[in-house]
């Protein structure tokens, strides 16, 4: 019976292409999401770094009329 190496290569080649393509999709998407996450964290840090002062002044003015 002839060996049909062509078919064997076709099968393994197809499997390799599909699996590598999926892996690349996962890899790229993960990078996207990780970067977006880092950007969000940075923004949150920046906004919380600039918050305490206005919050303190709001608190002092609030405590004024009560006691």
């Amino acid at each position, binding site marked *: 019976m002839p060996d049909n190496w062509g*078919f064997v290569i076709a099968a393994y080649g197809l499997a390799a292409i599909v699996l590598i393509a999926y892996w690349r999709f996962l890899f790229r998407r993960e990078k996207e999401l990780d970067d977006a996450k880092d950007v969000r964290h940075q923004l949150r840090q920046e906004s919380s770094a600039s918050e305490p002062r206005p919050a303190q002044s709001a608190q002092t003015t609030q405590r004024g009329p009560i006691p």
Partner: protein
Amino acid sequence: MRRLLGGATLLGLAAGLVMGFVVAPRESTQGNVQRIMYLHVPSVWVAYLAFGVVLVASIVYLIRRAEAADQLAHASAEVGVLFTGLTIATGSIWGKPTWGTWWTWDARLTSVSILFVMYLGYLLLRGMIDDRERGARFAAVLGIVAAFNIPLVHFSVYWWRTLHQPPSLMKPGPGTMPGIIVAALLVNFAAFTLLYVYFVAKRARLLRLEAEAEA
């Protein structure tokens, strides 16, 4: 941790290739085309594993409503569909030189195709529901129905068509395949399982990141 898994996966796949091409002998009746089996059979086993995980994760989700369970189910279904598609494709490629035709309604190809469409429907359902919580719930129900359907599919198709070689690995008593071929199959199965775990872990993490991004 994931890097370790990735490395182990690559090693496993390499070992599988070595087993499939170097260690395993040239099969007597089919010739070297039979080596496609080292791709086709482990693929289908991993697909079943994946869908089994979908079942368990779906049940866990419905009982505990843990988002992680839902993400696991989703990821496992996706990877399962991937491997199912691969099973069909490799089976078809193997069939052309062996049976002379690209497609035949034999027991394994048919039942795997039904599985493929069932779980493709699962992914479609998920894609069509915008509400995250509702999507998770419905997908879980579908995941349970689909999984319980698998044995029904099996028996009905097997009785309907018996062209394909009977699943020799599952038969009780002495196996009909020489030990070295069985060994090669098992090594490849282990490698594919590692690949499955790697893919699912990554995919589930992606889903978690996406959920966080939306929150």
